[in-house]
């Protein structure tokens, strides 16, 4: 049975070293990042390399590709840990998503939709409401992405 799994996408680790991803404007213009939701029946995870509409949720108020992720806080470090977190919650407002979903994929829409990470949660549906992903504290050890 297929299942979504959490983790940093392996392709992102390679592409980070290759210079594909700009999570801030420190070196060049920051890329636009997006977040898409996936159905429980899918296999999104560390092996995912790009965003795909296959298996993505659909429903009233939801646009394929998901929503843009706020990225106003540049990556930084503390001690030997570099870290980064989106600068605001990710909100899907006024949606109806009738099929159970349990995963969201962060990806770089400026760089051919290259995948960054997948995160999982208990399966949900939304009816005429909002689904909000609240970010963790942006600090070493708790940030969304930690590089140690």
């Amino acid at each position, binding site marked *: 049975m297929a299942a979504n799994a*959490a983790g940093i996408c392996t392709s992102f680790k390679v592409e980070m070293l290759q210079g594909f991803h700009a999570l801030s404007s420190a070196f060049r213009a920051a890329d636009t990042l997006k977040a898409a939701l996936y159905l429980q029946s899918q296999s999104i995870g560390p092996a995912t390399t790009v965003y795909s509409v296959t298996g993505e949720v659909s429903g009233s108020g939801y646009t394929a590709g998901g929503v843009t992720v706020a990225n106003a806080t540049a990556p930084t470090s503390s001690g030997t840990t570099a870290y980064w977190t989106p600068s605001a919650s990710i909100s899907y407002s006024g949606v109806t998503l009738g099929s159970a979903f349990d995963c969201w994929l962060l990806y770089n829409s400026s760089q051919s939709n290259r995948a960054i990470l997948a995160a999982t949660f208990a399966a949900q549906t*939304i009816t005429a409401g909002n689904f909000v992903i609240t970010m963790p504290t942006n600090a070493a050890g708790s940030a969304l*992405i930690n590089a140690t």
Partner: protein
Amino acid sequence: MTLVYTSEGLVDRKELRTVHQQHETEEADGIVMSVEWYRGDKLVRRDGWLNLYRPQEIGVGNGS
């Protein structure tokens, strides 16, 4: 009168009852809090809030 947007349009808040729940699995990266809104026995709205608590790690530390 306070109106709430639902699958049946705007409904007076007094006609709705809410059920609050939390959802978590062993493998999850966060906990989901949900609020279900019922008009009688019919679910007319459901919201969810995912609070992430597990960071994503690159690397396994450098020992320093």
